[in-house]
């Protein structure tokens, strides 16, 4: 993230994960090979599982920004990817500007909703890659946080399937309960994106009861709502 005011031009500000390259070329590559699938995969499934989880944690914790610090939310979101990582999903994490002062129940809601969204990708999207981006907007203490879980997989036609328990309760319900909201957008062949936002109402972080402002919606290119 950029600082305010004058910055020094040297060293150049990295805009890629260059800073994490030694990690990606070294330990992560070995752990990934051991986690499989592939010829180097370890025979014991539990070892493979633990390696996949370690890859997920290291991958998420490798900072994009050398000055970026991990927050409760980013750590919880990385943990939310562990189960899906053990199933073979590769989550690409991006975190920026996250506040440190989120209520614990909001962190939990984000984390569980994201875990459900990621497990939907692992189970239904037909892709092993997904991007999780957590951003905050607004001044400290009043910022709104959005977590986007986006895949480029098969997507779904919401008109033809019922919205499942997972999306309705584990994602939308959880966010609504803490005063957040959820956007679900999908279309066959164009992947699925789930945007979790808290608080639901701009500036709604202070005052207002949890759950009073939150709403969830499913949107799609055709009609109706969807099942993942």
């Amino acid at each position, binding site marked *: *993230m*950029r*600082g*305010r*005011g*004058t*910055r*020094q*031009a*040297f060293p*150049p500000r990295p*805009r*890629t994960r260059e800073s994490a390259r030694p990690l990606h070329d070294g330990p992560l590559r070995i752990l990934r090979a051991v986690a499989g699938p592939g010829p180097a995969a370890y025979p014991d499934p539990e070892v493979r599982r633990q390696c996949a989880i370690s890859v997920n944690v290291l991958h998420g914790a490798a900072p*994009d*920004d050398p000055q970026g610090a991990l927050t409760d939310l980013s750590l919880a979101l990385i943990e939310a990817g562990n189960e899906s990582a053990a199933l073979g999903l590769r989550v*690409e994490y*991006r975190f*920026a*500007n996250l506040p440190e002062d989120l209520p614990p129940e909001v962190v939990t809601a984000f984390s569980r909703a994201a875990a459900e969204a990621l497990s939907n990708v692992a189970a239904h999207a037909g892709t092993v890659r*997904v*991007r999780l*981006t957590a*951003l*905050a*907007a*607004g001044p400290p203490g009043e910022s*709104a946080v*959005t977590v*986007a879980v*986006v*895949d*480029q997989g098969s*997507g779904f036609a919401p008109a033809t399937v019922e*919205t499942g328990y997972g999306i309705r309760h584990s994602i939308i319900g959880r966010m609504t309960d803490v005063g957040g*909201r959820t*956007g679900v*957008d999908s*279309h066959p*062949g*164009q*992947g699925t*994106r789930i*945007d979790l*936002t808290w608080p*639901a*109402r*701009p*500036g*709604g972080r202070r005052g207002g009861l949890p759950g009073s*402002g939150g*709403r*969830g*919606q*499913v*949107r799609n*290119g*055709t*009609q*109706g*709502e969807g099942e993942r």
Partner: protein
Amino acid sequence: MIRVAVIDNDRLVPAGLRTLLAETEGGHDVEVVSTATNVAALRATGTRVLVFSVHGDRRHIRATIRAGAGGYLIKDDDPPELSAQELQVLYLYGTGSTLAATARRLGIAIPTVRSYLDRIRAKWAAADEPVDDVRALIHEYHPRTETFCALGPWTSRVRLGVWPTAVPGC
């Protein structure tokens, strides 16, 4: 006492710098020189040079350092301003949606999405340095909540009675 020569073709900036330097501990003997010169010529006189510029282009900076500048500070740190549409495209595409999904979501054509992305690249190239991956720019912006809200209309095709039809506050 350190003697500082401020060289700028602008009048306001040296005046501001003179005030700032005078306020620092010990004070400085500030002399404002408005004649344009170059870093190499200054270095030849034994002066130590700190460049303070709006130009953030890496090649420019490298050339300046090669010419002997001891440091280079960039005046303006704000990322180039993007329009509401450009921010929407950057948010959707930058968080991982495909071009097609971004276009459908915003109700625009894929080439239009491409042209927004080109515009974002052009703005960055003009203000700073060329960007390889537009998606990496998502870190540079902290979109206002309204940007997320403005991504609607969410709900025109959602079955009524199951999902609410309005986003509160949007």
